[in-house]
Every structure is written in structure tokens, then in C-alpha cells.
């Protein structure tokens, strides 16, 4: 469960990207954060995933107040989230399998177990046959699927994505939507920031609409 109360993020220079936002996301829900460019979607995603710290307000995830956490505790909290970025943030100095292995290495899993789980995650997104490929050799859709495999390999309770279909053609975007829907069906909480209306038409999720940093719906 994610509960935000009066969440505000003000950047140096005075820009308020998120203003006084409150919402509640129950476990297992699929929630879309929508709004036009500059509405504050990405900032809200960063706040939920603890990449950014709020200027004011509180954020409680699974009963834990993240705004009151010590800095040293943040990495352990982040491991409960699976993050997918619009630009994927893949590492091009290693193969697909090694990209997916990274969260498991961070968690300290023994190599053999980590490889087994990473291959299972690649299989889930249909990339097992490309495990040795460098991400640069993958298409945009495959790169996004690889990013999803990396996000889910640690079995997160919340899958958070920022414009995961933003740079994809409609066919690849549909594949990605289906993968997210699959995770939602097995009980994973899915939070997606997007301006892609296909999500709403197809899955009728809960919607959090932002405008100039405020929740309008």
C-alpha cells in the first residue's frame, strides 16, 4: 500500500514540480499517472520510488514512512520497487543477462541462483534467446522488455514505470502493456506514468491525473 499526504517537491530555483499531492494506492492495484508534459508525472514517480526526496508531506509504503527514513536505509527500501525508465537506463558494457543480474548482485544472491532467476525473468519477457546479446543490438521494444526483466527479477512488490512505451511503435508498446498487465494479474502493484491513452482504454486502471503538479482527478 502506498499513501501520499500533501506531497510537495520544490527544486532549487523555486520550481514546484509536485504540489500538495495526496493519494492512496492499495496493494495489487494498477494506477496510471497521467497528464501533459511538465505536469509532474516523472517527479511523482521519482518521489514514490525514493529517487527524489519530497520538500514537504509524507509518503508511506507498506506501513513505512519513507520521508522519515535515514539515508542509509533508502537502498533497502528501493529493492522493494521495480523501476522501468523511459530511456531504460541499460548498461551497454555488458550483455542482457548481466544487466538483469545487477539487482540480484546488489541483493547478494549467490551467482548460480542469481543466473537462474535472471534467465527466468528474461524468459518471462521473451528475451531468453538473446541473453548474451549486448543491449545495443536489441530493438527499442526489446530494450524496454529487458528493462522490465531487470525491474522484476528481484520480485518487487511495486512495479513503477515512467513512460515505458514513450519511444516505442504501437506493436512494441502493446507487447509492453501486456507484460505489465501480466504482472498486475499476479498481484503486483503497478504504477505507470504515461500520456498513452491506450492503457486507460484497454485496462481501465485507476487514474491519477496531474496538472501543473496538482492532482486534478
Amino acid at each position, binding site marked *: 500500500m502506498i499513501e501520499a499526504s500533501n506531497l510537495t517537491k520544490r527544486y532549487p530555483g523555486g520550481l514546484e514540480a509536485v504540489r500538495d499531492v495526496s493519494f492512496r494506492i492499495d496493494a495489487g492495484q494498477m494506477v496510471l499517472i497521467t497528464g501533459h508534459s511538465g505536469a509532474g508525472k516523472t517527479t511523482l514517480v521519482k518521489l514514490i520510488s525514493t529517487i527524489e526526496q519530497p520538500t514537504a508531506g509524507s509518503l508511506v509504503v507498506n506501513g513505512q514512512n519513507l520521508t522519515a527514513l535515514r539515508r542509509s536505509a533508502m*537502498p533497502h527500501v528501493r529493492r522493494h520497487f521495480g523501476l522501468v525508465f523511459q530511456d531504460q*537506463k541499460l548498461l551497454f558494457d555488458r550483455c542482457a543477462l548481466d544487466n538483469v543480474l545487477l539487482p540480484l548482485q*546488489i*541483493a*547478494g544472491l549467490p551467482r548460480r541462483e542469481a543466473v537462474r532467476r535472471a534467465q527466468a525473468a528474461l524468459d518471462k519477457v521473451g528475451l531468453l534467446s538473446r541473453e548474451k546479446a549486448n543491449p545495443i543490438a536489441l530493438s527499442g521494444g526489446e530494450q524496454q522488455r529487458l528493462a522490465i526483466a531487470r*525491474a522484476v527479477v*528481484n520480485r518487487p512488490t511495486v512495479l513503477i514505470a515512467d513512460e515505458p512505451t514513450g519511444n516505442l511503435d504501437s506493436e512494441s508498446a502493446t507487447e509492453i502493456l501486456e507484460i505489465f498487465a501480466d504482472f498486475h494479474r499476479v498481484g503486483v502493484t503497478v504504477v505507470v506514468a504515461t500520456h498513452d491513452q491506450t492503457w486507460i482504454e484497454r485496462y481501465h486502471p485507476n487514474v491519477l491525473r496531474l496538472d501543473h503538479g496538482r492532482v486534478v482527478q
Partner: protein
Amino acid sequence: MKAWFSQHSAALGLAFRRLIASPLNTLLSLLVIGIALTLPAFGYIVLDNLRDLGRNATGVQQISLFMNLEAGKKDISEIESRLRAAAAGKWRFVPKEDALKRMQASEGMAEIVASLPRNPLPDAFIVEPNNTEPEALEIMRKEIAGWPKVAHVQLDSAWVKRFDAFLRLGKLALSMLAGLFGAGLIAVTFNTIRLQVMAQSAEIEVARMIGATDGFIRRPFYYFGALQGILGGVLAAALVLGALRLLAAPIGELATLYGSAFVLRQPGAGEVAVLAGVGAFLGWLGAQLSVSLSLRKFD
């Protein structure tokens, strides 16, 4: 515990891979570190050899005790028991008759000795003290000089003091040199790690976002710095050993010409391990400083 071991072995493996990934850079860094450690290590071994040479040089750290000409057997026994009681080290008695015979055996002295009406030489003791510190030798000389029937006590203390002062000066210069080159080693590691952090910035950024602790991110850099230091230390030991091997034969020949059995001492396994350990520590320190500064931009 399993996770801890797994993370450390992964970090060590990553550090090895980074070392091997750019062999030329690694080789150049190792050469710089190796040479930086070679000079103080070589200086230490040379000083240690000089100290041995000084300790073993005939007469340098001996005390010669000359008895009065009228001293008898009873007086000699008294001195023997005093030397025993003082636990002064090794000593031997040289009777005046033996001393005269030795003098006669010297070239050109036989006729002179034969012309003497009586033996002018005194009985003597040659003492080789356990404690060869100049201050201790001087204290012992003064004590012996106060014993009965002792006419003269001879210690070349000025030579010993000069030699000791030279060694102390050498040690000080060596410490300064070691400090300077140690700082150089830290600087080399600092820069190497800084470049690595810049090259790995994408990985560091992603790792932080997906839950990597500071320790996870820093560890491979620490291992890299320490590994580089260890290898630099081993290279330095190899250079020192090589140089000493080259010098051993000519120094041995020179020593033989001076009637000495001096053999140039080579560094042992323990000293090589200490050199590698010092390299590892300095490398780790350089990495620690560099990572702390370089990672600030990711906060």
C-alpha cells in the same frame, strides 16, 4: 554471511576484470607504483645491510681492556668474574705472552721484539658486548675503567657514534622519501579511481536507483586500489631483488679484498609481504579518498 561473501567475491572479481580490461593503463600504473615503492624499499635494505656491516666490522663494537703490567692471576680472575657477573656478552682473555708472540709474527717486528729486555705488553680482555648501542657501549666502557688493576679501556666510540648518526640520518631521509613516494602512490590510485568512477557513472547511477548501498558501489573501487597496490608492491620487491642480485657479486668480491665475509642480505618473504601490504594499504587509501570525493556528484 552468504550474501556478504557473495558481494565481496563479486566485487573482487569485478576489480580483477577492470585491471585486465585495460592492460596498458594497468601496466603503466603498476610501473609508477612499483618504482615509487622500489626506492624506499631499496634504501631500507641498503641501510639494513650497512647496519649489519657496521655490527660485524672487526673492532668497531669491541671493548679492549688492558690490565696493569703488575696485575697477577688473582686480578685476572677478579676481572673474569666481574665480566661474568655483568653478563657483558662474549669475551676472551689475551695473555701478554700470546700478544707478544702475535707481535713477533708481524712482519718486521721480530727483531724489535727480540731486542726488548722484557715483555712490554699487558694482559688484555677483548669484550664483544651484547648491546651494541653507542650509549650502552660508553656506559660499559666507563664501568670497566673503574675496575681494579685495569690500566686502560679502549672503545672506538667516536667511530661508532658517527656510524650510528649516519644510520639515523639515513633512516630519517628514508622515512621522508617513503612519505613522499607513498603520497605519490596515493595520488596515482586517486586519479585512476577517479577516471574509473567517471567511466562507470552510468552503472553507478542505475545501481543506486535499484537499491545499491554505498558499500556495494564503493567496494570494487577499494579492491581495485588495493590490488593495484599489492601488485605494485610485488613489482617493487622484484626490482629490489633484481638490483641486489646484480650488486651481490661485486660487493662480495670487494668485501673479500678487505678480509670480510660480508654477504649482501636479500629481502625475505616477510619483507616482500610487508611491501605488498604497504602497497595494498596505500592503494586502498587512495581509492577511499577518490571514491568519497567522486561519488559526491551522485548524491
